[in-house]
């Protein structure tokens, strides 16, 4: 069975906690805090002021550049503040606060359940609608989707790849979406294919989700050019470059090369559903499925949540925080970000809230490197994490750059596998940021 060519690890997938829970709507919060930077790129520029009334789906902030995204009101009500609010890590960022009054949607949004298959729009119109709806990559990277779909001059897209891998342990939001919203997903895929003018799309799903594979395969028979492929379960298969290699055999060259250089455009499965809703139903991105999970959580769930809902209310809905020490993650355990502020809002890239408790919440004690080479074996980019760590201690930035640190995708395989419990990625991340800074400074000097 197919997988990517180099490295990888097998973390226990722990999807059992939430995989059987069907998607449920989270209660509407009384107040939402909607940050203006929910995506990679420039923050959106606010278009409303304190005291304004808004309906669900109304534009409240406009993309602040090409690589940026629109932001819409996730609830209806009155704007009570446009100011700095702490995010999940406690850092302050600009946000719009809305106090809820009812649940009144814009009339232009089609909220019926009816499936709309046919799409007669031109590619440029499709991209424009996706841009207007503020859609970003929902796997966690939050790269604005309309940017991906705008193929640069001289490049040509050959295949659309849909990421249904969800290799991150614990998370099941994409899985539930594929099972419950398969039709919408495939229509979304057809629309995306049209947007980039390709006649072939491949949906990659890992074989730890056999029911999702079967379901999508059966549905895909009705659609032209869409193929569903099972992949051998291996982390980090959901990494863009790993997925392209697993499905097409083509390897994206080191940075600054992009997937389009090998003719591929990659979109997440949940993103495809959002594209369906934006193009066929005129519905902007105002909500998403968030997996709230953990071994010690009373009732793990998959909750369809409006953006801006405080994380603590999702946890309360799932039975509340377990006793004792906890590590709360925005995302899954391999790449998620640790949270210290649970009052912070759910954003576009939040595929899950994972709660680790007790011993699982603690890091092991590091000991001496025994040069076992497990990190070299595990690195999916073919790097040498142990060496980068040693050079980082010595601040040997030149050597680190020569050893291709900019290729690092920060998947964490090295640290996951290290028998000496060395926090390899902490060092590598520090070195990568430093080296990228050095490279940027050098380029601006030129």
């Amino acid at each position, binding site marked *: 069975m197919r997988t990517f*060519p*180099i490295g990888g*690890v097998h973390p226990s997938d722990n999807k059992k906690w939430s995989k059987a829970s069907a998607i449920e709507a989270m209660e509407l919060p009384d107040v939402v805090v909607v940050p203006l930077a929910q995506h990679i790129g420039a923050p959106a520029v606010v278009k409303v002021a304190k005291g304004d009334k808004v309906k669900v789906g109304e534009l409240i902030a406009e993309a602040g550049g090409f690589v940026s995204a629109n932001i819409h009101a996730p609830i209806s009500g009155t704007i009570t503040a446009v100011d700095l609010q702490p995010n999940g890590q406690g850092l302050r960022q600009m946000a719009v606060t809305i106090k809820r009054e009812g649940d009144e949607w814009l009339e232009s949004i089609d909220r019926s359940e009816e499936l709309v298959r046919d799409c007669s729009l031109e590619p440029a119109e499709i991209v424009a609608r996706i841009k207007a709806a503020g859609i970003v990559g929902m796997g966690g990277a939050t790269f604005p989707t309309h940017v991906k779909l705008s193929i640069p001059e001289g490049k040509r897209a050959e295949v659309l790849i849909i990421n249904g891998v969800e290799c991150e*342990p614990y998370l099941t939001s994409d899985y539930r979406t594929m099972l419950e919203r398969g039709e919408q997903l495939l229509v979304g895929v057809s629309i995306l294919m049209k947007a980039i003018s390709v006649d072939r799309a491949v949906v990659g799903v890992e074989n730890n989700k056999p029911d999702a594979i079967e379901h999508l395969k059966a549905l895909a028979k009705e659609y032209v050019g869409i193929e569903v492929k099972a992949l051998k379960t291996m982390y980090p298969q959901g990494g863009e*470059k790993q997925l392209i*290699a697993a499905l097409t055999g083509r*390897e*994206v*060259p*080191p940075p600054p*090369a992009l997937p389009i250089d090998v003719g591929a455009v990659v979109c997440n499965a949940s993103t495809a559903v959002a594209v369906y809703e934006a193009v066929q139903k005129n519905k902007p991105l105002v909500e998403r499925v968030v997996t709230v999970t953990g071994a010690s959580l009373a009732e793990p769930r998959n909750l369809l949540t409006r953006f801006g809902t405080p994380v603590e209310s999702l946890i309360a809905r799932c039975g509340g925080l377990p*006793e*004792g*020490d*906890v*590590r709360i*993650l925005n995302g899954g*355990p*391999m*790449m*998620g*970000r*640790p*949270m*210290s502020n649970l009052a912070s809002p759910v954003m576009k890239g939040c595929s899950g809230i*994972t709660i*680790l408790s007790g011993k699982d919440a603690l*890091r*092991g004690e590091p*000991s*001496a*490197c*025994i*040069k*076992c*080479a497990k990190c*070299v*074996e595990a*690195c*999916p*980019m*073919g*790097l*040498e994490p142990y*060496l980068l760590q040693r050079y980082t201690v010595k601040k040997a930035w030149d050597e680190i750059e020569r*050893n*291709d640190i900019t*290729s690092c995708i*920060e998947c*964490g395989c090295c*640290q*996951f*596998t*290290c*028998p*000496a*419990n060395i926090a390899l*990625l*902490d060092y590598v*991340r520090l070195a990568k940021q430093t080296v990228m800074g050095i490279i940027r400074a050098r380029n601006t000097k030129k």
Partner: protein
Amino acid sequence: MANKFIVASAPHVHGDLSTRRLMADVIIALLPALAVSVYVFGWGVLTVTATSIACCVLFEYLVQRFLVGGKTTITNLSAIVTGLLLAMNMPANIPLWIVAVGAFVAICVAKMPFGGLGKNLFNPAIAARVFLLIAYPSQMTTFAAPSVEGFADAYSGATMLAAAKACLVDFGSYDAMGMFAGIQSGSLGEVAAFALLLGFAYLLLRRVITWHIPVAVLGTIALFAAVYGAFAFDTPHVVLNYSLFHLIGGGALLGAIFMATDYVTSPMTTRGMVIYGVGIGLLTMIIRLWGAYPEGMSFAILIMNSVVPLINKYVKPRRFGKK
């Protein structure tokens, strides 16, 4: 607030590997060979092994406690592995004080002065064995005859390799299968090919090591012996026997599977491992055929140990996206 929030960067989970588990797996993998050794040479094997392990652990503890400071490292089991491997490299009837000297060299000369586990340039057990071989040549090469009924005692006191070097072996009638089952005279760990291969299978299964180093070492030895044999003997049958003899006789298996694969003193990339393994195989055969010693495995490993930093510097893994 009742909860304490723990904040650390990703990844937030860890696999089931630990230094201690890896070391424990190496110990388990050596048990079949140890058992056969006890069967072949008698209970004296256990005395030698116990002495070796006890001395290694004690020396490491003492050095850590009184010279280096810091937390004790004996709990990572690496001193036990060194002690066990050292015992595997000695004859069953060796005086115990020589065992203690060997343990001292392994821990107090080859391992701890470099900074302990992970920092040493040379494999401690091999360094100690080579020291003993040069310092106490007669004790280190006087082997007890296998004490088991029906086992060949024709070469008692000398290894098969030594006998071969003295042109005492008739390769036409040589019984490779017998040696495979464990009837040769030699060090504790050299007697039983099948037990060592069992250990190899265990190490592969548990993913403690990869196949690259052992296969490169043994492949090179077999190929070298076959080519040499093709010039020395007339019939293919004898050439095959000669090649098998070099694989199974002496310390080739023990060295390739357990000594050359020592994490600390072997390369970090698979390509590097192959280069290192081929180097060990070549040097072993050169010493066996044209050197002063009948067995060249230990010297070959030590020499290649010293090349490892150079290999790590120049032999890189294939980077993703670069063909």
